[in-house]
């Protein structure tokens, strides 16, 4: 018998091999696509074809369910780790001019004396995202929103690049450095809280997360409470709201006090 006789129905091995394989495939397909979907009493199907499409993972939108209306605007900013990387000198210069109007709160050197965030040396992606959110209304603040509402995309990018370019200066009134509280380095795994340091530096840094060292304690505390109450909602996928909601008031105090007491020059050099 030569290989030419292999793929014919006269060959019993061919019949058996292909037959058994096809039979197993058909049986498992019937079980997986028809029997098992209907075995779930909590799922309703319009018919067999609907069940098959569902089990196959065909993308479909249930016609009867409409997406809930968003009461408030959500952040639409898309950040990648390449956002605003390698700015030109001209962009930084334009940003410096624009930044004069920010200096009254954020300080002429980007270090605030008014419990506003210190922006000198903050990651460009962070400033970029917040300005966009203030402009779109995803984040609101009585003082900040009017400044942001008329900014163009170009101006937002320039401002972000300028502040990222400034050197990180020591905070205005640094307190003695506090030891790391548990919430910062371990989080609270039983309540689903990742360590602060997993995104905000000291352990790792994630795109869009600011470094917090030397920022105003009052500001950080206010933001954590705003996240917890849902008043602030421009965090992607509720990342910060989920964390802040699960934090105790003591942990919020500890985290804010700890970060405020750190000099910014300990910010991990990841950029």
């Amino acid at each position, binding site marked *: 018998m030569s290989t030419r006789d292999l793929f014919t129905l006269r060959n019993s091995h061919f019949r058996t091999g292909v037959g058994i394989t096809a039979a197993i495939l058909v049986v498992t397909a019937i*079980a997986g696509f028809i029997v098992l979907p209907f075995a779930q009493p909590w799922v309703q199907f319009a018919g067999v074809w609907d069940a098959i499409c569902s089990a*196959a993972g065909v993308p479909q939108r249930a016609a009867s369910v409409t997406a809930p209306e968003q009461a408030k605007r959500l952040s639409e900013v898309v950040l990648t780790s390449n956002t605003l990387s390698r700015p030109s000198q001209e962009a930084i210069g334009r940003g410096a001019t624009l930044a004069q109007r920010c200096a009254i709160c954020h300080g002429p050197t980007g270090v605030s004396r008014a419990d506003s965030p210190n922006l000198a040396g903050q990651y460009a992606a962070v400033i970029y995202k917040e300005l966009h959110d203030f402009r779109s209304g995803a984040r609101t603040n009585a003082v900040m929103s009017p400044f942001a509402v008329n900014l163009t995309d170009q101006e937002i990018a320039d401002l972000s690049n300028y502040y990222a370019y400034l050197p990180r200066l020591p905070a205005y009134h640094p307190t003695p450095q506090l030891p790391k509280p548990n919430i910062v380095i371990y989080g609270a795994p039983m309540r689903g809280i990742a360590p602060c340091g997993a995104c905000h530096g000291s352990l790792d840094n994630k795109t869009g997360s600011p470094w917090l060292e030397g920022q105003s304690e009052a500001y950080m505390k206010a933001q954590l409470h705003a996240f917890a109450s849902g008043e602030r909602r421009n965090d992607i996928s509720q990342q910060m709201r989920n964390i802040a909601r699960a934090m105790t008031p003591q942990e919020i105090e500890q985290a804010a006090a700890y970060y405020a007491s750190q000099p910014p020059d300990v910010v991990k050099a990841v950029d």
Partner: protein
Amino acid sequence: MLVNRKLILAHFWLAFAVFGVALTLGAWQMFIRSPIGTWLSNPELYYRSLTAHGTVMGYVFPTLVAMAFGYAISESALQQRLVGVRWAWAGFWLIVAGSIMAVIPIALGRASVLYTFYPPLIGNVFYYLGVVLVVVGSWIWVALMSVNLRVWRKANPGAPVPLAMFANVAGSYLWAWTAVGAALELLLQIIPVAAGLKATIDAGLARIFFSWTLHAIVYFWLMPTYIAYYTIVPRAIGGRVYSDSMARIAFILFLVVSMPIGMHHTFADPQVGAGFKFIHSAFTALVALPTLLTVFTICASVEIAARLRGGRGMFGWIGALPWDNPMMLALAFSFVMLGFGGAGGLINMSYQLDASIHNTQWITGHFHLIFGGAIVIMYFAIAYDLWPHLTGRELIDIRLIRTQLWLWFIGMIVTTFPWHWVGILGMPRRMAYFDFGDPAIAPQALSVTLSAIGGFILLASGIMFIVILARGMRAPQIDAGPYRFALAVHQPTTVPVALNTHALWVALMIGLTLTNYGYPILNLALSSGTSVPAVYVGAQ
């Protein structure tokens, strides 16, 4: 008839050298995340090490062992000089170049993506190119195995292909096809992003492509071990293979059913339909079949050896086995670990049971027990068995060899049993450190410590293995005679064409891949809005 010994030795030595390095990294990883090590201040170092460990142990080491063993089988089973020796050397050097190219970005911390790539995490492009070169180098071996068999068939029309070569070529075809999944993922998705041509990637699709490779690759790792079970062990302990046909059927079944099952790795993934998950789960259950056939056939073959040595009674023959023979020892250890690992595997492939151990340390414990235990211990046995024929020198220290095998077995059990246990308790995998001071996980500290101690036993055994082989290069010269494979009780004189060729089974393998992967891949590839921004390693 081993002619190209230098070629085979080069593959083995490179395999065992990189194995030694990766094993050391592995032991360090076990130590550093156990309570006996201090916390790493920089978790990135852990992932760097993990990437190197996985890349070497997953891609480079087993591939080189399969290639070396494959060349040895081709020459000694077919009794014919290897055709295409220059190509074989080209394949070897491609693997050397690929490994170096991949290891540099890993060492610099630019490719800490783990060997499973995990897009949207994107590392340095040279890491991926290095892996591609390793795969391309191994594909040369696949082609050579096919060519050599064809040359032999021309010279021996209609004759039964020796079992070792039949299985070896089946393994090479399995590798050729299963590597296509990761190759598609690398070439179509990851490398364009890593090279800066694109900034987004469909991570869900990438995971489907990778599952195409990730499960069947295990059976490619397994092939040399199974070939050793069938064709070396019975000869080494003075027995015969119980059934040549059963052996062929086992290898054929691996070819057909180890491919269309990879999605049991993605049970928790939302982008795959539940129906496909069920089909893959059912086919995964089928893959236990060739292993059960093998366990039966090998136990029967071993019993033949025992009875030939005068063993009597229902179980009395077990005592008559040559337990001081390293090959016997390796087989027994391998079967014990295969039994436990296989039982764990049945849990992993069950849709509901998987939910309790998915992404936990159970999984890492499982694949270390199966691959590092059941499979690698037979790699050792293969090397010990072939070494005198490759070097023309005797491996004198049988006692040391036995100690080495014992240590590997004990080390693997001590490492992986607590590892499974903490997985059941819910400890996640891929973590650089744990806070064992936290009352929630403090009770796991003892298990993890035991695991780490097992890791060091394994390291000691690995060092002994390399020392034994190195000393074997300088031992007194002997004439080891021709290298032979085990004979069957009934040596085949004619074999049905379906059991003597691979075409039908390769066709079924490809067919099942199309039915089980076709729709999920097309669905994701053609849907818009399924890509996410890439996350570059080391970028802020």
